[in-house]
């Protein structure tokens, strides 16, 4: 239960950063998605349920402050958190390059789910424009920002990795 509560608290911090600071670090109009990065990092570390719940909570906060359709961010980030959790054993979070690549892919997944639902709601924008103007720059920016976010969040993520070894050590004391 603790990882879920902890992930929601960290996502809340990411949301505050996203709402107040991220608009000021936009590059060429592209803003990174800190909530998505944190969600995916929690998915990689703790598995699908924690990733999905962290994504749901982050998506809800993001939609409440910025979304015209509250619910789209919930779906996309829940799915990203879940699938990040599925590959948790493949992504070794101590090697920063792999999470960067994984966040790049996670951003594409997030944006495609988001665009898919926007399309269902009648928001039709040419896919080429979306890919070149929004999805690709956001994915690159998110990937580049991942090491910094990871450095900040790492102290929380290490918690689970250390626990089993501590428990095992205590068992044999």
């Amino acid at each position, binding site marked *: 239960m603790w990882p879920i509560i902890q992930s929601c608290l960290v996502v809340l911090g990411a949301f505050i950063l996203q709402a107040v600071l991220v*608009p000021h670090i936009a590059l060429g109009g592209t803003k990174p998605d800190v909530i998505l990065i944190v969600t995916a990092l929690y998915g990689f570390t703790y*598995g699908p349920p924690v990733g999905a719940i962290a994504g749901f909570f982050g998506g809800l906060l993001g939609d409440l402050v910025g979304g015209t359709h509250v*619910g789209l961010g919930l779906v996309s980030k829940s799915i990203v958190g879940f699938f990040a959790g599925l590959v948790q054993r493949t992504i070794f979070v101590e090697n920063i390059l792999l999470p960067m690549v994984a966040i790049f892919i996670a951003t594409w997944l997030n944006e495609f789910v988001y665009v898919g639902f926007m399309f269902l709601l009648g*928001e039709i924008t040419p896919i080429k424009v979306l890919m070149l103007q929004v999805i690709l720059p956001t994915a690159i920016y998110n990937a580049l920002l991942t090491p910094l976010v990871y450095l900040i969040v790492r102290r929380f993520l290490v918690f689970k990795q250390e626990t089993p070894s501590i428990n095992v050590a205590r068992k044999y004391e």
Partner: protein
Amino acid sequence: MPEFFGRRNYLILFGLIFISMVILTVHFREGQDGPIHRAQRLVLAATAPLQAAVTTALTPVGDGWDYLAHFGELKRENKELQKEVSALKSELFARHGLEAENDRLRKLIDFKQKQKYGTIAANVIGMPENNWWSSIIVDRGLSAGVKHNMPVIAGGGLVGQVSDASSRVSKVVLLNDAQSGVSVQVQRTGEVGVIKGQLKDKRLVLQYISRDSDIKNGDIIVTSGLGGIFPRDLYVGMVAKVRQSVYSLYKIVEVEPPIDFSHIEEVLILQYDPGVSITEGN
């Protein structure tokens, strides 16, 4: 079978997606006083002071960066603006005469003076935090007389409409939001079209202008007043590019708005209550 293919995990995912769909549907169907809209206003009011503080703290840094990054461009722009000021001054003198003549004619035909609207000045304290929607947060809300759907002016032209207002702050959906659509007309020819935003592109797109139209660069685009969403004759922008696709029935017209939507600092909110929003009216 590995744990991550477990049924419980998928049940959690589908449960969350189901709840999201319920929230999406409720938000879509409920009115402005519905629970999700109220929650949005609550979050808006809670984050606004932080956004205002950070915006105030970072503005000098941003201004300095902009100055350094665009120094050459600013110098050139300054020269062009000085030329423009002299041209406009001479035009202004010419217009004084026309205005006086216009006044006389209005009185002559007993023309009912168009109703003027009051304005509320507001500062921008927050910018959009994601790449999909284009909106700003301003420091005036219900207590200052701001109401849902009021038009918002900046840089001498229409920039958006109030989409949400709490007691002290309001959210404004900008014209360059991909969802917005405003009925406009070409001032010179009277042709009516719809102006749309195109994500991060600074220019707006004017749709439904017939391929036979003689619209050209420099034409002024103003609100048409059709549909009652905005009062008519609000300046929207100037035609910057006209293209014609071989297969299209319409011309592709790009419109340069009077202000860069990513650098709006102050706005005027027109006290005009249309009762319809730009995102509903397209």
